[in-house]
């Protein structure tokens, strides 16, 4: 069996698989970067004021959700994969995964930056920390929109 034959016979599942992989890989990288950045900031705070651990945890977790969204989309897309699926079906699954893959990736990093800046509020003015959390949650909106769209796309067309 040559490459062209593999492409014709199994192209669908290969593209579908690529979509699944991207939905996990990209938001995963973004979330790791975001959580890592906030982790650096909060550990700086822990050196001086370890009693603020509880409040800092919320900021720390915020950029982590994108990875979770990507994982959920990947699981749902994986459920639709089968070895003999058509190329068009596979490509469609890939497309459906793209919104969360890209938006999840970048938004996690941006959210991480806002949350890390929020740690400065926690450091200097503890009473106002909620404001930092709200600013950070604003970024979450766009990850959530992408997640919802990926979810709808996956279930919108039946092959």
């Amino acid at each position, binding site marked *: 069996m040559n490459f062209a034959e593999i492409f014709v016979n199994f192209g669908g599942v290969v593209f579908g698989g690529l979509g699944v992989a991207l939905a996990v890989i990209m938001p995963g990288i973004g979330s790791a970067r975001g959580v890592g950045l906030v982790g650096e*900031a909060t550990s*700086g705070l822990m050196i*001086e004021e370890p009693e603020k651990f509880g409040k800092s945890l919320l900021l720390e977790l915020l950029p982590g959700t994108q990875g979770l969204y990507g994982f959920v989309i990947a699981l749902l897309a994986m459920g639709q994969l089968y070895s003999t699926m058509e190329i068009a079906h596979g490509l469609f699954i890939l497309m459906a995964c793209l919104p969360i893959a890209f938006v999840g990736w970048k938004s996690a990093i941006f959210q991480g930056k806002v949350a890390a800046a929020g740690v400065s509020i926690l450091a*200097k003015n503890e009473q106002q920390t909620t404001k930092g959390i709200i600013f950070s949650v604003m970024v979450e909106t766009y990850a959530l929109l992408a997640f919802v769209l990926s979810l709808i796309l996956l279930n919108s067309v039946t092959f």
Partner: protein
Amino acid sequence: MDRLDFTQGVVRTRVLEKKLLTFGTLERLIDAGTMDEAMKILKETDYGSSFSLLTENNDFETILFAELKRSFQIMDDVSPDSSIVNLLRLKYDYHNLKVLLKEIILDKDFSHLYLPIGTMDIKQIKTFILNENLQDVDPPVRAAIVEVLTDYKITRDPQRIGIILDRLYIYHFLKIIEAIKSPLFIEYAKAMIDFINVRTLIRVKRQKKDRKFLEEVLLSKGNIEKEKFLHSFTDSIDQIIRNFRNEKIAKGLIPALQSYKETNRFEDFEKEMDNYLIKLIREAKHIHFGPEPIFAYLLAKETEMKNLRIILVSKANEIPPQMVRKRMRESYV
């Protein structure tokens, strides 16, 4: 340099900033009737532990210096890039170099004047100079030493040591800043150069030196062209104020020149200069990723030390509070 590398350091700096003396505490210190009262107030602050070691009231200089040294050590630990802290250590390096070269040229012992807070091992440099082997010295410092020594051979004027090193210090400072690529630092350095040039202009006029000398001692690379200072050479102080009215630093420069005009004291000019620069660096409060907050903290600490010294010296000499208030620098917080 990746700005995000400073994330942890910035948060730590934010916590340390909270321990800087507030306006209220400084006011209470100024109004304190005696040295003992001032000490009581200081013991409630971050300086508590160091000042409680003080036995004789007048030895606060040692403690202030130890505190400054401690701040630098903390920041060495906080900053992921040593060049930021070393940038502020540079002026102590050049101070030490000045003392060292005067020692060598005048063959006297000034060892009590050294400030052991810089990056250079001054004893080692002394050995290098005496052995006439400068290979292992940092190139800009090596160039500075060579320039001072050659200049002294020609002019035989020890006063020029300070003049040359002050100029080379600024250029070295600017060179490090250019490598860091922070717009705020560049603005800071350029404003500093402009202020120093104006100060040089009025100083040269006061010392009745000639235009050629002014041209030599003026610094380049500031916002204001060198020519403008040379054109103002024959002008009166009022005319100088008018000449520089529209410059970028005018907001600080005009009050500085005006208070110099009133009192004829360079300290008053320098106070306004310090105030302008600390206001400029306050921008760092809004920067969350980058080296600026670390630089600003150390600058704030230096200003705080300056203010504490003014207060404590005046307490020791029983100078009334209103006089002290006039000399106080604006603080960072």
